[in-house]
């Protein structure tokens, strides 16, 4: 396999390009249901950062996402794909609830620490089942963690319906003891911003140190990078797999415990709502780097918060899932992005690529204009009902070529910026 000459550089560029392309594709989907993407994205931005309560809400949403992102990202580094952060989060929250409702007489600092630790342990234990099975019997962790997700979901919905149930209406557990509630950093309107964000960021920094500066981190990375070589080098693979899954699960469990002690204050059975799966896209966008994951989580938190506002404007918030899916797809098959980027570092390359770009743009624009005319309502009415579909086909052609044009333009601009940056940095090197 060819190794890229600029791994660091691509690690940075591929996720950005993927997000841009995903947003463009999503905008075409929004046009298809008859809404304006510009309006949609404005609402999304406003919903995420438009007011101080929106920002607080985004941060609250980001908190567990940092942790699930770290959970999946750490797994990737260690060579396991923890798709079960969802279930580990639920188990973390469930166990933390069982403890937290009984900690009324314990002073807050100790009570919070115990609750969060219990959450971490529960997540770790739940994930370690999958890790142990992989190490001992070779059962693929993707299948086992998915099964564990479903088991956790049904178990928790049973727990809130029968043993823990209080009140009527939505099934819920009793409220946790006041001493176990996370302190609030500030309150904006109806939003309480809890101290969980600090815990998350500390976790990210700790994980960065463990991964980059300790022997354990080195072993984990080695086992993930090339398991056979690592085993030959004296690293116990089965121990490593179980431990990596446990650490990954502990992070997800912590996310669940923080959601419990900082946001809901009671266990609702299904509190995760896709955060475990968000962790996958966050880890990939952040390129499994703890610091990158913080920013990727912020992006995803903003998308989640903003999409709630979009829902009011008639755009289903599932659009966020589609965006996420496209980003994961492109980051996983990063060669698609890499080959579509052109580095114009020489004069001839600039002329050549610009010519090609203009040619593509002109052709696409012509297709768009022609199909715009052909898709006009009533133009094909002489064909009857069939004519309606002919019009629709041209409408789809118009939208797809519009999308291609946008992607071509975006790629050209990004490539140009990168090329400029490279030329500039090279000059600087020559001078010094």
């Amino acid at each position, binding site marked *: 396999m060819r190794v890229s000459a600029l791994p660091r550089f691509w690690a940075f560029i591929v996720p950005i390009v993927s997000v841009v392309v995903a947003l463009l594709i999503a905008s075409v989907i929004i046009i298809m249901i008859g809404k304006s993407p510009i309006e949609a994205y404005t609402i999304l931005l406003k919903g995420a950062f438009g007011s101080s309560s929106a920002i607080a809400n985004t941060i609250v949403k980001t908190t567990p996402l940092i942790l699930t992102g770290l959970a999946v990202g750490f797994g990737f580094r260690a060579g396991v*794909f923890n798709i079960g952060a969802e279930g580990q989060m639920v188990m973390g929250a469930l166990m933390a609830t069982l403890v937290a409702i009984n900690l009324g007489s314990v002073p807050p600092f100790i009570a919070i620490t115990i609750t969060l630790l219990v959450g971490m342990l529960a997540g770790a234990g739940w994930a370690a089942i999958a890790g142990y099975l992989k190490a001992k019997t070779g059962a693929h962790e993707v299948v086992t963690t998915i099964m564990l997700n479903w088991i956790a979901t049904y178990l928790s919905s049973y727990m809130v319906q029968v043993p823990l149930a209080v009140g009527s209406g939505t099934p819920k557990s009793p409220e946790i003891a006041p001493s176990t509630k996370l302190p609030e950093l500030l309150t904006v309107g109806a939003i309480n911003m809890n101290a969980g964000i600090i815990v998350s960021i500390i976790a990210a920094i700790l994980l960065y140190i463990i991964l980059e500066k300790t022997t354990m981190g080195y072993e984990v990375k080695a086992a993930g990078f090339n398991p056979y070589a690592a085993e030959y080098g004296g690293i116990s693979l089965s121990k490593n797999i179980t431990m990596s899954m446990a650490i990954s699960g502990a992070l997800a469990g912590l996310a669940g415990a923080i959601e419990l002690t900082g946001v809901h204050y009671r266990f609702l059975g299904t509190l995760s709502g896709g955060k475990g799966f968000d962790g996958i896209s966050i880890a990939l966008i952040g390129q499994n780097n703890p610091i990158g994951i913080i920013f990727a989580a912020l992006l995803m938190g903003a998308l989640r918060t903003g999409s709630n506002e979009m829902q009011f404007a008639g755009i289903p918030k599932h659009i966020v899932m589609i965006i996420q899916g496209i980003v994961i797809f492109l980051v996983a098959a990063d*060669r698609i992005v890499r080959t579509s980027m052109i580095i114009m570092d020489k004069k001839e390359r600039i002329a050549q690529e610009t010519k090609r770009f203009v040619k593509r743009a002109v052709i696409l624009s012509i297709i768009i204009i022609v199909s715009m005319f052909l898709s006009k309502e009533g133009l094909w009415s002489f064909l009857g009902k069939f004519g309606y579909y002919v019009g629709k086909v041209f409408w789809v052609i118009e939208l797809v070529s519009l999308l291609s044009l946008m992607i071509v333009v975006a790629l050209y601009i990004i490539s140009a910026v990168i090329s400029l940056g490279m030329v500039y940095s090279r000059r600087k090197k020559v001078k010094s």
Partner: protein
Amino acid sequence: MKVLEALLSIFINPQFYKIALTASTPLIFASLGGVFSEITGVTNIALEGIMLLGAFTSIVFTFYTGSAWFGILMAVLVGIGFSWLHAWASIKWLGNQIVVGTALILIAQGITGFLMKPIFGRPGQTDFIGRINDISIPGLRNVPFLGEAIGEINPLVIIAFVSVFVSWFIIYKTTLGLRMRSVGENPEAADTLGINVYKIRYFGVLMSGVLASLGGAFLSVGETGNFKELMSGGRGFIALAAMILGNWNPIGAMLASLLFGASEAYANLLQSSKLIEVPASVKPLFNMVPFIVTLIVISGFIGKTRPPAADGVPYEKAE
């Protein structure tokens, strides 16, 4: 004693066999799809997403045209298109197959959820749209036990069993099948012998798209006649487990699917058993049964099965 009686009485209830068949059918289709893809060396975790999209597409086109069979045809086409994305990213661009598959599941969940409101006017689930009617088998209908169990059967169930044997024949008795298996075991050697590794792999993945979307279509137009968000509910993954348990063999996958389907049917019937009272609140515990069975089976039997040697490994032609 009463509990034991209740537990055992399910086996002599013809309804059990009927429900078990119905529950197994989507798993049979999807696990066959998994076999086709993995035997050529491409892990297809996206089965879950393809199923969901198949269920959705078939309902949408049944809704527009009134014909459930046309809906199934469109579901197959969309399944091919969607699995082509998987093939394109993981065969041509050597993407991480498991991550690409996860992305496709998310996209399928997103698109089906997103389009619910524009097409059906409300999110969540649709009304009854239409389904493929069961056909009654003339000779069997009046036979006491069998008649009740399989006297009336959905044509898709029959198609599922037929495709098991067709797949077995293709994979083990034809040149194409031999090529598929050799590409999955040792792509370099197959390439040296002049087999086009990429084409064979594309074929495997696209076949998995056809079969998995048939499985999905069965969930909607074969069974309930409506579409619910996330209605595939983990069946794509159970199908993967069935494929593993069945040792990547169509007939093994069918038997494993029957086992999982039976465990689902068993849990269902136990909930409605007249011999023991099962409070509604305990229901979630019964829903866990198929997943626990899958987990136990996959971790207990895995040592005895063996995946194709090049399963999940992208193949890059040497230059």
